[in-house]
């Protein structure tokens, strides 16, 4: 996987962030275009290619979620876009509460605040289980594990969207 290659890493899902940063900084020092301002155009181009790849790689790999998404894509797995069925009921109620608040019904606020807390906790859970799954897969790379990671990512993404919507609505109405 080219992003791992760029940083001289084995393709693993769990990464040590300090090590990742160090690799990124060391390689940037070596390859940044600033170091090639008096070089010929071929070398300059190579430096640009190396650094833009390094920058992409670091940006993608330093965040566990974008790293896992990249890893899945490179492993030939597409990310699903459907709503996780287990959340359907939750979403239904949330939409009602959102409607109520928009309509000026302040009593919905409490419900939204507790939804906000619940979603934040769900995000935390998802992050924790991702970390666990990463370690498992790195130890024993099984396809089934990737599927689980994929499902967890999907759920996390969905919850994060819900959280964003709730926060937006709460902010808008507290601003008024």
């Amino acid at each position: 996987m080219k992003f791992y290659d760029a940083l001289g890493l084995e393709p693993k899902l769990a990464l040590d962030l300090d090590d990742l940063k160090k690799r990124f900084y060391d390689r940037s020092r070596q390859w940044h275009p600033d170091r090639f301002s008096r070089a010929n155009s071929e070398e300059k181009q190579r430096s640009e290619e190396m650094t833009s790849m390094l920058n992409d790689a670091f940006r993608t790999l330093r965040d566990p979620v974008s790293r896992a998404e990249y890893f899945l894509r490179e492993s030939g797995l597409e990310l699903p876009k459907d709503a996780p069925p287990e959340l359907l009921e939750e979403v239904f109620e949330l939409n009602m509460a959102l409607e109520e608040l928009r309509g000026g019904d302040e009593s919905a606020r409490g419900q939204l605040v507790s939804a906000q807390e619940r979603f934040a906790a769900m995000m935390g859970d998802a992050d924790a289980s991702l970390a666990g799954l990463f370690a498992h897969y790195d130890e024993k790379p099984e396809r089934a594990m990737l599927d689980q990671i994929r499902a967890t990512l999907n759920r996390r993404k969905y919850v994060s969207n819900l959280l964003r919507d709730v926060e937006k609505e709460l902010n808008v109405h507290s601003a008024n």
Partner: protein
Amino acid sequence: MSTLQIDFGHAKPRIVGIDLGTTNSLAAVMDLTGPRILSGIVPSVVSVTESGEVIAGAEAREMLITHPERTVYSVKRLMGRGVGDVQEELKLFPFHVVEGSESVLKLQLGDKVMTPPEVSAYVLRKLKEDAEEVLGAEVTQAVITVPAYFNDAQRQATKDAGRIAGLEVLRLVNEPTAAALAYGLDKRKEGLVAVYDFGGGTFDISILRLHDGIFEVLATNGDTHLGGDDIDNLLLNIALEDIQSEWGEDVSGNAGLVQLLRRAVIQAKEALSFAPAAMIDLEYGPRTYQREIDVQLFNRLIEPIIERTLRPCRNCIKDAAITVEQINETVMVGGSTRIPLVRSAVERLFRKRPHTELNPDEVVALGAAVQAGILGGEVEDKLLLDVTPLSLGIETMGGLMSKLIHRNSTIPASETELFTTAVDGQTNVLIHVLQGERELVKDCRSLARFDLKEIEPMIAGMARIQVRFLIDANGILNVTAKDLRTGKEHSMDVKPSYGLTDDQVEAMILESYDKAEEDFKERQLREARIEADAILGAVDKAKEDEAYQALAEDERSTIDRAINELRLAYHSDDHLLIRDQIEKLNQATMALAEAIMNEAVGKALKGTNVNAQ
């Protein structure tokens, strides 16, 4: 005759760092001991005299009063912009825009028509000449600073200005980042720094992570149309209204008076940073206008402007994915940060007393010089990793913008997209490249249209052209296309939405190049002749000394020969030849000079003895 200077050696040409500001510009260079300012501040003002000569700097600033309609200031606000963008500001400027220029503004100054990059080039040329004077060598390469929030067109326009001025622009550096470099904050091995840069025309905020000499920009935000100018305009409007009611006359159409009033207003504003009240004081012929402004009123006026700087700060903190408590240091840059209310607002937001040790007018140029040192190889322990301030994308179906490179991505950053044809036999594909954060194309900034042309006619969807979008270390977009079927580069036409085409820049370079080159040669020649005059005069005098008579015959004839050769060289137009002959004459008269010196010392000593008796 010449002063010795510690130098990195003459083999390598010096790269100068230039702060090309809205109000003032300044050049600096990297020495062994650190960055150093070269000569003085150059006001970013350009004027065309009645005889058609173009002047820049302090002289041109005087023309603002006497010839406002042929004098440009704050041209940085017009860089990389179209006529539609700047209607509001044009109302406030005394000079005129030539009709019919949509993608490039053209300004009418006397009988000259100039684009903003050409105007800026005159300021740069002035800086270049001043720098050459101080360094005693030609300057051809530069690092120029730009507001971090400048878009692609504004950056390109700045680079064009450099090229027109005869400077190879090795790098555009973001102003707040340059300031961080100048502050030497990397003495702290690790940490987070916020740079708040509030100048004459622009506002920038950047948050950086420092790590062992690496300055990594995490996020940047700003407003390329917010600065001290806006404060001036508020005060100016008050004064104009006052005058209307006092004099019973609307004077806003009188450009000379307005400029005089603007100057008075700026004086009062700047004084208010250090005093509880200040006077706007105007004398125009027999008429006068005076008005005291106190700090309370001033603060009330500028509060909304300061508030407009705080929102980008908050967004920047959010984008950097940090909390305000994590920021270790705050740095203040730009003349408008001298305003106490600005300082206290920044202190309140960042909960830290900001750094104000370095002169806010100089810090950006000093940082540019450090970056010049990095590029020149003299500074090895520092490295800047900057980001692109705006997302880059392309137009897709339905007038939507599809993002390819997100804002705050470390640059250089690149992305590739595969393009193909939609109908059978289609021979070209048009790509519309945009910059901005909004979803709709019409809310984003159009950068350019790329036409992938001369595609071999084939069935729809068969063509495979890979286009690579690269934002380079200057924050400028480079686009290349490759035909994946042939593996060859695919040609395309580029039509920038704003700014000059390459051909236009080339033409402007040609136009100015001969002249600039000539200017430098002439100056070199003039200086060499002055030096020759000096040494010839000195030798003539020395020949009257007894020490000359005491020289051996052949020594005297060597001197005479050297004198004659220098006189001959004097009339050539080769300054190097003159300098060679000066050096030869110097050598030939070494013994003579020593003898005269000894004689003088001897006399002086005798004199002391006499006095002592």
